[in-house]
């Protein structure tokens, strides 16, 4: 059973459908009698909802139904709290989850006020214009510090203030560390909000079959099983009466998680009420304020260092924007809090965050999920410390890396999965060495940069380390079945949004069952195929679902060998699984095809040994004890145009360690794509709000995604430190590219400008860089 496919660059099996336009996306679902929905949304960020008059909309020809909050009756309920607060001593958490349609108050621009269902989307949108809304505007809560001040407008009146949560985690004794420090670096850092901006907007199609009493929902979700379970509860149906299908999904990046968005909750309800299928497809402008977003945090952080650069401790106090509601709990700020520690030995740590309600759209994880902020703060502090101590920036990092024998390393605080933050494995200095060699650090700093600077060019280098907590529980499952045709079917509960699961899971099965991956058919994201699991998030698909797939395949192999041994009259250890059949070692003519064996495993007549399970099929689950710690180094060289303040990336090197690599092509694709998003976060993407809470750049004309002209080819290196926490040794990679890019970018820009400015905020547009350069010159 030597791995043949594990680690191979198998071209993706799902590509053909996608390339020829035959893949089913949610908006491709077309059902007889289908109606179309549109939502009326609030133009106000904060206000008292005095009335929503839908009489004219109801009277419009082609309109089938119009509902406001008042029409929903008992079905109007705030959404579920998706992630409860972790058991941190002294934690404060005020839950306020989103509502299906606003009632009494509106709390962010884009909050839905009414649902129109009509014979076509065009007619539904016409009817939106017929609705008259009366909102008495209130001051919008936008600034995180002002929101907490006495007298501020309050987003949730019943809470009496805008505090969503507060939690402090500590280890060691920060005060003592600070007292004996050679230097203390203290700064304020700001990381602003952006959009996930998957190219496919969200969508939901629901159909109720009154005869079979079954509800089918096609949903652009990363987590179909929790959505099924939740919808069944809300609609008073059994879980087996609800089928949620996450077909091909055009990018997830976080916001398509099990959100129970208003649309997700209302479209199935509407389909049941009307007895006709209903489709809702989000448009891009809606996506800018009705889909969740991330990233505004303000950190006041201090780093205490010894004279030789050794980290003595870190203190951090930060504000985190949760928007108008906080259904996703504290995942983001806890990720920030934990990820800040990075690959370093930090003996003393005192971190407290305060989460604030504002009149902006809801915050939930977006690729990185708070980890960016932690990396940005720590790496910037180290850069500033190195400058103050007159040390090399690589040297100060090397001095503080946890050594390879430090594992498992317990940071003595809790991670987002409520488990202790314990790193499983890593070779951090080695990753740094590789990056230093790849970017040719010494030569650049000593030879190239001085030469280019002498020629008037502003070139700079950035090099940073990071940890990405990945592969968290609780669990995933998979079922592997050999069909009579000889095809192997793999069903798993996770949804897939382009990560290549159809291929990587097939590779895992192929090795175990001795067949070509093209003979393995993977089904994801259909609750009728597999009904247990949580979803695709936190870089956990390959780790958690991957190990479940692998284990299920191993169990099927055992069944194959047991039955084949009986059929071929041979000992199990004398059997060989190869090319879709089993034969006796040294006697290739004594063989049976797996498909034929599957038929024999399901006898129609005769007896079986009591306890025999039919079929060549097995189901397995995997739940890790805790998450993994993937790690890496990003290094880049930039050139700043002093006239336009454009920053051009000349080289970008990533060294990453995600443990065992199932398919290097897929992993490199994830990293390259993640870096593109990281570059966007660092330099192009920022949601801009007016003081009255209006989003002022809700289109791709004004909100700039990186294009092919902005993203360089990333030069990639791997180190492989398998995780001891799962049989495959995998760690996960989905978010790695996006996490450290801003920190590396900031260091490189500073370096290019020879210390003339300090970059303490992200993103850094050309405009903002110009301002900083003006300030620096003043």
């Amino acid at each position, binding site marked *: 059973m030597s791995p043949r496919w594990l680690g191979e660059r198998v*071209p*993706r099996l*799902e*590509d*053909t*459908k*996608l*390339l*020829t*336009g*035959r*893949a*089913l*996306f949610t*908006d*491709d679902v*077309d059902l007889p009698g289908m109606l179309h929905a549109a939502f009326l949304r609030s133009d106000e960020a904060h206000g008292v909802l005095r009335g929503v008059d839908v009489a004219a909309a109801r009277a419009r*020809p*082609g309109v089938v139904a119009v509902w406001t909050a008042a029409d929903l009756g008992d079905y109007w309920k705030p959404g579920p709290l998706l992630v409860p607060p972790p058991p941190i001593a002294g934690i404060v958490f005020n839950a306020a989850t989103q509502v299906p349609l606003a009632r009494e108050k509106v709390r962010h621009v884009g909050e839905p006020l009414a649902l129109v269902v009509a014979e076509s*989307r*065009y*007619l539904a949108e*016409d009817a939106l*214009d017929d609705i008259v809304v009366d909102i008495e505007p209130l001051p919008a809560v936008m600034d995180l510090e002002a929101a907490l001040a006495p007298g501020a407008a309050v987003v949730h009146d019943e809470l009496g203030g805008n505090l969503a949560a507060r939690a402090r985690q500590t280890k060691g004794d920060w005060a003592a560390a600070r007292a004996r420090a050679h230097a203390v670096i203290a700064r304020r850092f700001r990381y602003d909000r952006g959009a996930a*901006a*998957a*190219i*496919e907007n969200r969508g939901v199609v629901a159909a109720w079959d009154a005869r079979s009493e079954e509800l089918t929902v096609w949903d652009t979700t990363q987590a179909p099983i929790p959505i099924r379970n939740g919808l069944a509860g809300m609609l008073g149906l059994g879980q087996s009466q609800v089928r949620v299908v996450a077909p*091909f*999904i*055009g*990018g997830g*990046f976080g916001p398509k998680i099990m959100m129970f968005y208003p649309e997700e909750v209302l479209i199935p309800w509407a389909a049941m009420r009307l007895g006709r299928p209903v489709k809702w497809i989000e*448009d*891009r402008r809606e996506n800018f304020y009705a889909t969740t977003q991330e990233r505004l945090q303000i950190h006041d952080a201090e780093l205490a260092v010894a004279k030789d650069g050794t980290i003595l401790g870190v203190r951090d106090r930060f504000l985190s924007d949760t928007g108008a509601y906080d259904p996703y709990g504290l995942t983001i700020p806890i990720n920030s809090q934990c990820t800040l520690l990075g690959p370093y030995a930090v003996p003393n740590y005192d971190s407290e965050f305060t989460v604030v309600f504002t009149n902006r759209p809801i915050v939930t994880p977006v690729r990185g999920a708070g980890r960016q902020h932690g990396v940005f703060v720590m790496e910037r502090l180290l850069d500033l410390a190195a400058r103050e101590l007159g040390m090399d920036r690589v040297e100060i990092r090397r001095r503080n890396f946890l050594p390879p024998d430090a594992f498992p390393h317990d940071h003595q605080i809790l991670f987002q999965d409520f488990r202790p933050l314990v790193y499983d494995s890593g070779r951090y200095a080695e990753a740094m060495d590789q990056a230093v060699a790849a970017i040719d650090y010494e030569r650049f700093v000593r030879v190239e940069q001085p030469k280019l600077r002498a020629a008037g060019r502003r070139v700079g280098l950035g090099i940073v380390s990071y940890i990405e907590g990945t592969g968290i529980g609780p669990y995933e499952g998979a079922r592997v079945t050999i069909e009579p045709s000889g095809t192997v079917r793999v069903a798993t509960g996770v949804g897939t*949004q*382009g*990560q*290549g699961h159809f291929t990587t899971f097939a590779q895992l099965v192929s090795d175990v069952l001795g067949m070509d991956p093209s003979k393995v058919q993977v089904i994801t994201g259909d609750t009728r195929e597999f009904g247990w699991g949580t979803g695709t998030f936190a870089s956990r698909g390959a780790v958690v679902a991957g190990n479940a797939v692998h284990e299920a395949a191993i169990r099927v192999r055992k069944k194959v060998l047991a039955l084949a041994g009986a059929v071929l009259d041979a000992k199990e250890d004398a059997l060989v699984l190869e090319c879709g059949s089993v034969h006796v070692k040294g006697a290739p003519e004594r063989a049976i095809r797996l498909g034929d064996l599957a038929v024999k495993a399901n006898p129609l007549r005769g007896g079986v040994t009591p306890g025999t399970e039919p079929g060549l099929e097995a189901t397995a689950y995997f739940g890790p004890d805790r998450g993994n710690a993937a790690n890496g180094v990003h290094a880049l060289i930039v050139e700043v145009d002093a006239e336009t303040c454009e920053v051009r990336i000349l080289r970008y090197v990533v060294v990453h360690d995600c443990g065992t690599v199932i398919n290097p*092509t*897929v992993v*490199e*694709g*994830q990293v*390259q*794509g993640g*870096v*593109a*998003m990281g570059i966007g976060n660092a330099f192009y993407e920022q949601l801009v709000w007016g003081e009255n809470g209006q989003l002022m750049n809700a*289109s*791709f*004309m004004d909100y700039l*995604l990186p*294009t*092919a*002209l902005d*993203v360089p*080819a*990333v030069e990639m290196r791997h180190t492989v430190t398998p995780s001891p926490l799962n049989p495959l040794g995998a760690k996960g990679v989905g978010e790695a*590219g996006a996490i450290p890019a801003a920190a590396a970018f900031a260091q490189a820009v500073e370096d290019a400008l020879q210390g003339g400015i300090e970059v303490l905020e992200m993103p850094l547009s050309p405009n903002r860089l110009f301002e900083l350069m003006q300030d620096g010159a003043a």
Partner: protein
Amino acid sequence: MTVQQGLAVSLTVNGSKVERTAEPRLLLSDFLRHELGLGGTHVGCEHGVCGACTVLLDGEAVRSCLLFAVQADGHAVETVEGLAANGDLHPLQAAFHETHALQCGFCTPGFLMTLVPFLREHPSPSETAIREALSGNLCRCTGYKNIVDAVALAARRLASDAPAAARA
């Protein structure tokens, strides 16, 4: 706005004659997707920036979300569904597959339809030219590198196939 009268539209789609009626305000993208069932043309922004809905109109790449169906009257439209002739992938499609130039695949049809006329007009493009050609299409998954590689690979293949095709 009131319900509008349908107008007769007659066009060629992927080589087949199509005759329908369409409201004047019906977008070409919606017409292709929902009237003709050609779901491969994707809609990502409805304002002409992302490029996912790109199709060919008389051989030129256009944004189908910026055109009305009635504007295609009398013209020839080609969509991604028409690209793989006789079930064989077009060299661009094959190159995308081999270089892992797609992840979620939602933007992919728009990239392909942008690139067909580009490669016709620029049979051996430089990397810079390729990147410029791609810059009107947004991809959120791949970071573009593999798409650039795919275009270069397809260009090489098309160039080496061209003499054979000419002989045939």
